[in-house]
């Protein structure tokens, strides 16, 4: 495949040569997946490849591990640890949800380059809350793609917390393919040092009467850069769509950068589709208020950043998902504060 042109937003800010591990297609080592004792991960996963997307084709060709998680009935909270160790590692996790569950995927390790592909399907009337935490070491590169299919009257919640890695590109695409389906998606990014975090989110309303909400909150310090590109598509005939996207950026230093591109493509008329984007510095009045209560300026700013980032999860309903990610965020910020 030829390199994708930078004219498209998807590849404008993180061109393909900057995120691939090397020229050509190397053979990857496996990302090691482990899961709660009472749950089984089946070996192998259905091959789902979007031929037009170089990242997905690459992840499909590079090899690595592949597993499927079957959820039948009310499974409760499932933690999956994905360990990326080595030079070039890759893994594919597929989730089949035919019940109700909260699944948290923790990606850790110090591999130079990790390729992670997550796919899944939420069957009719089922509910899946899925969280992804990028906790890779500070010098890791990550290419991460997800594809989700949400069925009739099904509910999907997606939360992502990016606090690790040096350079990452995530491309998460969800198709609302069944009438009455719901997607709530929250992404938080905390940029430190020279981190480069690129999130591309596509939500495709294929049929009528679906609901989606996307919130992306990015706080960037140092010389980090957060890129958030979103594409909300409402197909012809998808009347009764109610879709909203909010992109917020908090820039914490002079060298930090944030780019937001929330796109809409609407081909139906009976819809409510809206997006908003905002960027602002930390409000000095808020810092002053906290300092007047005896809190140091650094701690005051950290509290404001924490509140800002955790606020993204308020659009979610699943308490387990919210609590796990909020706790992880708090731990991360406290560690950073103590440095």
């Amino acid at each position, binding site marked *: 495949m030829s390199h994708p*042109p930078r*004219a498209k*937003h998807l590849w404008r800010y993180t061109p393909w040569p900057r995120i691939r591990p090397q020229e050509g297609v190397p053979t990857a080592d496996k990302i090691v997946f482990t899961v709660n004792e009472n749950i089984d991960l089946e070996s192998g996963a259905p091959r789902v490849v979007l031929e037009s997307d170089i990242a997905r084709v690459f992840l499909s060709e590079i090899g690595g591990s592949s597993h499927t998680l079957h959820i039948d009935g009310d499974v409760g909270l499932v933690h999956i640890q994905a360990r990326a160790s080595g030079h070039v590692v890759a893994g594919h996790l597929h989730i089949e949800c035919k019940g109700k569950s909260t699944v948290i995927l923790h990606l850790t390790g110090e591999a130079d380059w990790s390729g992670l592909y997550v796919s899944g399907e939420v069957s009719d009337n089922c509910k899946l809350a899925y969280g992804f935490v990028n906790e890779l070491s500070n010098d890791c590169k990550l290419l991460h793609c997800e594809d989700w299919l949400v069925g009739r009257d099904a509910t999907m919640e997606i939360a992502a917390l990016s606090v690790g890695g040096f350079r990452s590109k995530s491309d998460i695409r969800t198709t609302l393919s069944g009438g009455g389906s719901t997607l709530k998606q929250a992404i938080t990014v905390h940029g430190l040092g020279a981190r480069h975090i690129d999130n591309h989110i596509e939500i495709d309303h294929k049929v009528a009467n679906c609901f989606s909400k996307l919130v992306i909150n990015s706080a960037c310090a140092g010389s980090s850069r957060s890129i958030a590109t979103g594409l909300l598509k409402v197909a*012809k*005939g998808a*009347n009764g769509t109610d879709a909203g996207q909010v992109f917020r*950026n908090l*820039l*914490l*230093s*002079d*060298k*930090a*950068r*944030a*780019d*937001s*591109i*929330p*796109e*809409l*493509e*609407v*081909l*139906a*008329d*009976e*819809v*409510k*589709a*809206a*997006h*908003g*984007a*905002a*960027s*602002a*510095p930390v409000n000095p009045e808020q810092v002053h208020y906290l300092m007047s209560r005896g809190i140091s300026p650094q701690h005051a700013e950290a509290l404001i950043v924490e509140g800002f980032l955790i606020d993204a999860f308020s659009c979610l309903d699943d308490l387990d998902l919210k609590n796990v990610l909020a706790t992880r965020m708090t731990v991360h910020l406290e560690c950073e504060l103590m440095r």
Partner: protein
Amino acid sequence: MSDEARDIVGDYRYGFHDEDKSIIRFDNGLSEQIVRDISAIKNEPEWMTDIRVKAYHHFVEREMPKWGNPEILNDIDFEAITYFLRSTDATEDDWKDVPEDIQNTFDKVGLREAENTWLGGITAQYDSEAVYHSIREDLESQGVIFLDMDSGLREHPELVKKYFGKVVPHSDNKFAALNTAVWSGGSFLYIPKGVHVEMPVQAYFRINAENMGQFERTLILADEGSSVHYIEGCTAPSYASTALHSAVVELIAMDGAKIRYSTIQNWSNNVLNLVTKRAHAMKNSTVEWIDSNIGSGLTMKYPAILLKGEGSHAEVVSVAYAGENQHQDTGAKVHHLAANTTSNIVSKSISKDGGRSTYRGLLQVTPKAHNCRSKIVCDALMLDQDSRSDTYPTMEIGNSSADLEHEASVSKVSGDQLFYLMSRGFNEQEAMGLIVNGFFDPFTRELPSDYAVEMNKLLNIKMEGSIG
């Protein structure tokens, strides 16, 4: 208008045309020789010929944009277009000296009436060149220079050489290169220091001949502390074949100056409107693009402002109507390059009868631009299920002190609003017209009252048949 043309352009009020009585018409097609011939026929200085030739080669080498509407763009047959056509011997300053059929055309589009009542100056361009030009004596005595661009180059070559292509270089994009190679006509406007032009000046661009390309070039310089309101309007006959309009507009607002540039674009649907408009705003200056796109088959236009001076301000109010066989790909670009700069963008669009409206915008804050503020609002109305509305905004923020907001929404006319108006005695059609006029109000209230009334009438005509 032929039946075939009517199928393409629909019921278009300005679709009439005069018999082609051109005194010079170049053969269709583009080559370096054509470019040199255009320059020669205008007796241009050598430096301008060189710029044209350089731009021509860039045009040939430059790829067609892959965004916007690539299907239509790739179908443009540049060899089928006439690049230069002269209708009269000279640019007249008395309507009596303009050929009668051309006079009648500008009567029909209402230009002469507007000139007599409230305009400070006027340029009427017919195909490639201006056929009529006037400016009020009091403005002239204050040192205001308002000429068609060809005369501007002849009479003020030093000013034109200094600023031509400095805001929009020929290498900017394929169509800017094309314009630079074959430009003809347009306006040259210079406002001296401290002069406030109270009455708007207007240029009117009319394409008459079939297969015509119109490539006017406009350069407006507002010197320190001056102000001006420039209005452009445009119409074309309805033909079955495609016409190309590819203008370049360059504005420079010096320290403390203010330029308002209003456009009422009402080309017929067989016209492809691919223009580049950009402004430089210096210290404490203001540039306003007030832009409406009602006509054309495809418009790709993103008025841009580079806020280069501290304290400068950008304002873009843009409305678009995309009806049957129309794609309005419009938007705005604002680059905050200096500290304490502010911008405000309001974009409104309506899609109807299968039309497609697209907002494509860029807001950039560079690392040195401290304490910038910007607000962008994009609203789209969808009037039927065959239409389409897209929003592609880009925000690039490189300074932590920037305070930016962007919001966009796509919706249909609310049943509650229609019901409320109908309960007050309006029929459905009238109620819809009122709601649409209200939707476009941020644009029309920025226009001089005569234009606002005309704009509302135009919208009402476009909205006919939108109910039931």
